[in-house]
């Protein structure tokens, strides 16, 4: 982990209260969580790209990335899409209700290492959620980075996540290029996949440009291919992977991709370390 802080006790569950629910899109909401009891010594410390295990007793746990500003000391935010039993049960809870949380876990985005570079963020669908902490951090330290671009693809204009924040991000120095797969005639924005925007993006210095991608695996692979075609090598591309997470601490074996435990070696991984593994079907 980047912070060098001692690891979290793995099975310790913290009671947390839902302090706020912000509906983002159909079936997607951001939950703000605060510790119900005394916070642990680490408080709300986390790294961009890490995740928590949200626990509903009797139902189970779900691995959800932190999606807020990681430097906030007043709570954690998770943007959750309805997917399975746990998230569906969670969607029936209200402000004030309590859940259990284990974490944070995992290796996050190496934002410090990107200083001095042009940064291209490529996100798809709900994949923008684990990247939002990067955006806040990059904009907070704007002068330490070169050109900042976000290429974001969603299915339709009504599913562009966090779209109310794009103007603020633009004004703080992030170029936001949004695109959709499907639209009606009244949409005058971009229509087509994110890789087209990356192909067209002006990259003055590929050798000092880094790409971070988060979204469907197919999207991330073609993003890395586009990056390579533009002269950005695989060791300058980072992706965030998803696998079945149960223990989140490297014991249960479920999340393995070849030698990588996605819960510990990831979820953020440098692309050159996994590109050959991702090309094998059903690995």
């Amino acid at each position: 982990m980047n912070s060098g802080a001692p690891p979290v006790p793995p099975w310790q569950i913290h009671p947390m209260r839902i302090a706020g629910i912000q509906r983002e899109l159909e079936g997607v909401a951001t939950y703000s969580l605060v510790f119900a009891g005394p916070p642990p010594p680490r408080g709300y410390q986390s790294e961009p790209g890490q995740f928590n295990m949200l626990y509903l007793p009797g139902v189970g746990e779900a691995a959800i990335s932190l999606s807020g500003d990681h430097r906030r000391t007043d709570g954690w935010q998770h943007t959750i899409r309805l997917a399975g039993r746990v998230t569906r049960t969670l969607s029936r809870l209200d402000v004030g209700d309590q859940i259990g949380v284990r974490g944070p876990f995992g290796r996050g985005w190496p934002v410090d290492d990107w200083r001095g570079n042009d940064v291209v963020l490529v996100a798809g669908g709900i994949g923008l959620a684990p990247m939002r902490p990067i955006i806040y951090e990059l904009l907070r330290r704007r002068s330490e980075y070169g050109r900042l671009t976000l290429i974001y693809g969603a299915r339709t204009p009504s599913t562009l996540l966090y779209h109310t924040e794009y103007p603020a991000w633009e004004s703080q120095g992030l170029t936001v290029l949004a695109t959709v797969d499907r639209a009606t005639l009244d949409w005058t924005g971009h229509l087509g996949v994110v890789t087209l925007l990356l192909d067209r993006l002006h990259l003055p210095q590929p050798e000092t440009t880094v790409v971070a991608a988060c979204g469907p695996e197919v999207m991330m692979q073609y993003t890395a291919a586009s990056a390579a075609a533009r002269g950005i090598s695989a060791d300058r591309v980072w992706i965030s992977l998803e696998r079945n997470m149960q223990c989140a601490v490297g014991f249960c074996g479920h999340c393995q991709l070849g030698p990588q435990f996605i819960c510990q070696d990831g979820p953020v991984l440098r692309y050159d370390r996994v590109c050959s593994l991702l090309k094998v079907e059903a690995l």
Partner: protein
Amino acid sequence: MSNTGHPEVAESLPPPLWLSPKDRFQQVIDELRQQGYTVVGPTISQQAIVYDEIDRIEQLPRGWTDVQGAGVYRLQQRQDESWFGYVVGPHSWKKFLYPPILRLSAATPTASGWQFDRLTDDPPRYAFLGVRSCEIAAMEVQDRVLMQGAYIDDAYRRRREEAFLLAVNCTLSGANCFCTSMQTGPRCTAGFDLAITETPEGFVVETGSARGRDVVAACDVRPATKAELAAAAAAQQQAVDQQTKRLDTADLPRLLMANLDHPRWQEVGNRCLSCTNCTMVCPTCFCCSVEEVPDLNSGRVERQRKWDSCFHEEFSNLNGRPVRPDIPSRYRQWLTHKLATWHDQFGTSGCVGCGRCITWCPVGIDLTEEVAALRETTA
């Protein structure tokens, strides 16, 4: 943990001792129990030699041996009265160190919300009687997984540190044993508190730790003679000489990872039933899952860790669908993890050459044969 390796302890450890007649072995069991250990050792149950609590030497499978093959296990009476004339059965010490079901935590509903409590258990101090060299190696493999990573499995650590290892040097090899290929045996060289070698007349007893010394000091032992040591060495050599199965481990991780699309995976996957026997009997497999166990009366919910297997179809479920939907991909996962990626993760092979997976596979899949087939048909 046994065998501290401290220099001052090593100097105060006795030389090899002699315990005879063999019935005096009951003193060792009694002393262990006297010191508060729960003795677990080999005994016959349901036509197999398993590990269970014992307190009498009469419960040991004296005069029995196990005939093993690919998908074959049966007990057979020996011509002699050897106490440890068999190899390993369906149980491994994993059953005690990494229990199949472990209660992790509990959530209790209260007026102000859920109360979450860790559940710590109070396991007995085990004395494992009859630990083979490959089994010591398997424990050391699991030590790396469960105690030497970023997170520590506390339940395993407590059991492992308390466990007394009374090892047995094999005096025979089974048809599926290949510990010589994996360099995990057959002789126990370290990692035990006591190690015994059986000869017709008695036991040579080697002391590996202060704890072992303290147990054996309470028994009727004396230093072993040269002749007795020679007899023990000859008996140990039988295990080496009898071993026929081999696994060629040269460059094995690279061989496997460079052939992930080899047609052999489809071929073995068509034979494999995905029954999970191999993962259950393997002494190093550690995959598990966490389940909710609610109490309908009180509303209290326990979380329990249970053994799982990468062969289960839903093991790799992501958004409701398995990443490895077919048996060939799951077999490939198991074998490449055991023999290749385990090296990247933990610095050793995951296999100790005990042969259990071969014995207990209902269709007789032999991983040494699978590796040989891959070697033969690749550049």
